[in-house]
C-alpha cells in the first residue's frame, strides 16, 4: 500500500522533513556563475553546508587549439597561444617559440633572451595581480580588486608600448621577437614598478593580517604535499606546500641563471599560503626584470655605416631600379614599418637564421635576396621547416609549468602541438581541496587555483 507522501517528501525524497534522516542536496555551481572565472561547472553534493562530493566539469571554452595549430605554418600558431593564458600571453608566445627553436636547434640572440625575460616577468606580475585581486573581490575586498587592476593597468601600458597591443599581443616569433624595446622603455618600466610596489604595499596592509580575509583563507583548501606532487601541480600551488620547484631555477632557460632572485615558498598548502607565495613572487619578478634591464646588451649591429642615410622612399626606388649594390649597408632614417622594428633593431632581437626569421622590411623591399628570403618563408609549402622529430620545452608560466610538446614531420606545418596547461592539474585536484569543506569556501579555493579558461580548455 502506497504511503501518503507530503509535498516536501515528493520534492525532496522519502524521509525528508520527517526527521527520519537527511538527504544530500545536489547543487550545480556554474557554468555561468560570477565566481567561476570563465566557465566551468562544479556539481557539488551538499550535506547541509558541507560539500561531501564534487565533480568538476570543464571544456566549455574548448576551441580546438591543438587541432588549429596543425592547419597553418609554425608561426601561425603564435596568435592562438596568446589566447591560452590571456592574462600573461607573452609567456605562452615564448614557450611555444622556444619549443620550436629547440626542435630546430637554433639559439636566439642575447638581447632577445633578455627581452623575453623582462616581458615574461611583467606578464607574470599581471597574472598574479589579477588572481589575487579577483579572489579578494569575491571575499568582499572590492578595494583590493580596484587597486590591483590599477596596478595591472600600469603594466599593461608597458606591454602595449612594447608589443602594440594589450591582450592579444602576438609578440613572440620563432627565432626572436617582433620588435625591439622602445627607446624610453627602461624609465617607464621603473616608474611603473614604483607604482606597482606602492599598490602591493597597500594591499599587504589591507589583506595580510586582515581578520576577515584570514578567516576565509587560513586552513581552507588545503592539499597535502604528497597529493600536490601526485597531481602534477606546479607553480605557486606547489611552492605553497614547501617544494621550491620552479622551472626557471630547475632547468634555467634564457638568462634566469644569471640573475639573482629567490623562489619563495610556504609550507601550509592552504589558500593563504598560495596568496603569500604569489605576493612574494611579484616582488621577485620585479627584481628579475630590473636586473635584466640593467644587464641587457645592445647586441651585434652588423650594418656597416658606409653610405649616408637616405629616406625610405628613395631606398625602395633604388631597389626597384635594380641598384642594389651596397644598398643593404645603407642605414635609413625613418622606420618604414612598426616602430622599433628597423633593420638594426631587427638584427639585435632576431636570430641570424634565414630558415626561420623573416628579413626586416627594408631588406625585403630593397633587395632581391631579401625578397626571395621573405617569399621562401611566407609561401605555402615552404616556410619554417624544422627537421622531423619531437621536442618538449617547458617554461614557468604564471600558474606553473607551461610545456609545449611539438612534433614535426619535416614540412612547414606542425604535425602535432601539445600544450601542457599549468592550471589543468590543480583543476583535476580541485575536488580534493573542496570536499569536506563549507560550500562558501569553494569560492576562495577556486580563486586561489587561478583557473584560466583559455589554457584549461584550449
Amino acid at each position, binding site marked *: 500500500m502506497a504511503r501518503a507522501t507530503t509535498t516536501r517528501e515528493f520534492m525532496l525524497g522519502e524521509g525528508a522533513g520527517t526527521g527520519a534522516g537527511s538527504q544530500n542536496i545536489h547543487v550545480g555551481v556554474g557554468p555561468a556563475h560570477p565566481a567561476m572565472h570563465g566557465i566551468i561547472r562544479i556539481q557539488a553534493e551538499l550535506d547541509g553546508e558541507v560539500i561531501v562530493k564534487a565533480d568538476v566539469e*570543464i*571544456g566549455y571554452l*574548448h576551441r*580546438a587549439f*591543438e*587541432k*588549429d595549430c*596543425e*592547419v597553418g605554418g609554425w608561426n601561425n600558431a603564435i596568435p592562438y597561444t596568446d589566447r591560452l593564458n590571456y592574462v600573461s600571453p607573452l609567456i605562452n608566445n615564448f614557450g611555444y617559440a622556444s619549443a620550436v627553436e*629547440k*626542435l630546430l*636547434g637554433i639559439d636566439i640572440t642575447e638581447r632577445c633572451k633578455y627581452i623575453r625575460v623582462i616581458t615574461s616577468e611583467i606578464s607574470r606580475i599581471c597574472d598574479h595581480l589579477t588572481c589575487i585581486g579577483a579572489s579578494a573581490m569575491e571575499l568582499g575586498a572590492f578595494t583590493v580588486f580596484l587597486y590591483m587592476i590599477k596596478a595591472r593597468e600600469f603594466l599593461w601600458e608597458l606591454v602595449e608600448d612594447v608589443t602594440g597591443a594589450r591582450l592579444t599581443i602576438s609578440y613572440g616569433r620563432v627565432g626572436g621577437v617582433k620588435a625591439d624595446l622602445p627607446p624610453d622603455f627602461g624609465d617607464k618600466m621603473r616608474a611603473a614598478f614604483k607604482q606597482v610596489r606602492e599598490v602591493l604595499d597597500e594591499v599587504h596592509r589591507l589583506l595580510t593580517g586582515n581578520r576577515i580575509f584570514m578567516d576565509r583563507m587560513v586552513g581552507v583548501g588545503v592539499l597535502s604535499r604528497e*597529493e600536490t*606532487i*601526485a*597531481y*602534477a601541480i*606546479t607553480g605557486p600551488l606547489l611552492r605553497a606546500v614547501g*617544494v621550491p*620547484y620552479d622551472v626557471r631555477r*630547475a*632547468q634555467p632557460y634564457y638568462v634566469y641563471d644569471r640573475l639573482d632572485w629567490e623562489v619563495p615558498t610556504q609550507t601550509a598548502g592552504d589558500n593563504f599560503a598560495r596568496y603569500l607565495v604569489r605576493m612574494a613572487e611579484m616582488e621577485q619578478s620585479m627584481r628579475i626584470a630590473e636586473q635584466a634591464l640593467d644587464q641587457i646588451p645592445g647586441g651585434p649591429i652588423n650594418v656597416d655605416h658606409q653610405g649616408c642615410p637616405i629616406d625610405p622612399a628613395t631606398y625602395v626606388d633604388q631597389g626597384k631600379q635594380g641598384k642594389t649594390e651596397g644598398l643593404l649597408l645603407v642605414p635609413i632614417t625613418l622606420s618604414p614599418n612598426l616602430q622599433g622594428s628597423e633593420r638594426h633593431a631587427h638584427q639585435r632581437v632576431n636570430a641570424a637564421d634565414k630558415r626561420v626569421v623573416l628579413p626586416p622590411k627594408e631588406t625585403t623591399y630593397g633587395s632581391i635576396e631579401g625578397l626571395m628570403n621573405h617569399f621562401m618563408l611566407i609561401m605555402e609549402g615552404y616556410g619554417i621547416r624544422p627537421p*622531423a*622529430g*619531437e*621536442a*618538449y620545452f*617547458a617554461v614557468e608560466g604564471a600558474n606553473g*609549468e607551461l*610545456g609545449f*610538446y611539438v*612534433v614535426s*614531420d*619535416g614540412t612547414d606545418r606542425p*604535425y*602535432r602541438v*601539445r600544450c*601542457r596547461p599549468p592550471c*589543468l*592539474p590543480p*583543476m*583535476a*585536484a580541485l575536488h580534493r581541496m573542496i570536499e569536506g569543506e563549507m560550500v562558501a569556501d569553494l569560492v576562495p579555493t577556486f580563486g586561489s587555483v587561478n583557473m584560466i579558461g583559455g589554457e584549461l*580548455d*584550449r
Partner: protein
Amino acid sequence: MEGGAILAELQARFGAAVVETHGHRGDHTAVVTREALIEVLGHCRDDARLAFDVLMDLTAVDVSRLPGREDGPRFEVVYHLASLRHNHRLRLKVRVSEDHPVVPTAVPLWPIADWLEREVWDMFGVRFEGHPDLRRLLLYEEFVGHPLRKDYPVNRRQPLIGPRI
C-alpha cells in the same frame, strides 16, 4: 641522473620491453611495449635513483600521416615524466594499433592520469583499461568522433547539443 644513463638503466632492466630509445635535442625517450608499460612506469616512479614523482604530461600522437610510419601502429601515447628530487626528465612512449587502441591505465600510480587519460580518450579515442571513469573531458558526450585524429576534418561541424535535463 643523466638522460642517457636513465635509458641504459631501463634497457638493462627491462630488456626487450624497451623497443627503441633516442635522445633527440636532449629529450631522452624510450618506447616500451604495452605489456610492460605499467611495470616500467611503476619502476620509474618508485626506484630511488629515478624517482619520477611527477607525471608532467600525458598525451598522444596520431602517427598515421607521419612519413615512414603510415603502416605501423597508428597511435603513440606519450608520457612525460619529471623528477622533483633529482631534477631530470624522461619521455616514455607506447605504440598502439587502430584495431585495438587500449592502454593500461596509470591512475593507480598518479591520480592526475585520470583527467589526462580522459582527454586522450576524448581527442584520440584511445581507451585506458582499468580507468575508473573514462568520460570525455573537454567535449560533450554526444560528440561523434575524436577530433585530434588525422582523419577528422578541421572544418567539420557537429550539431550543438543543449544541456542535459
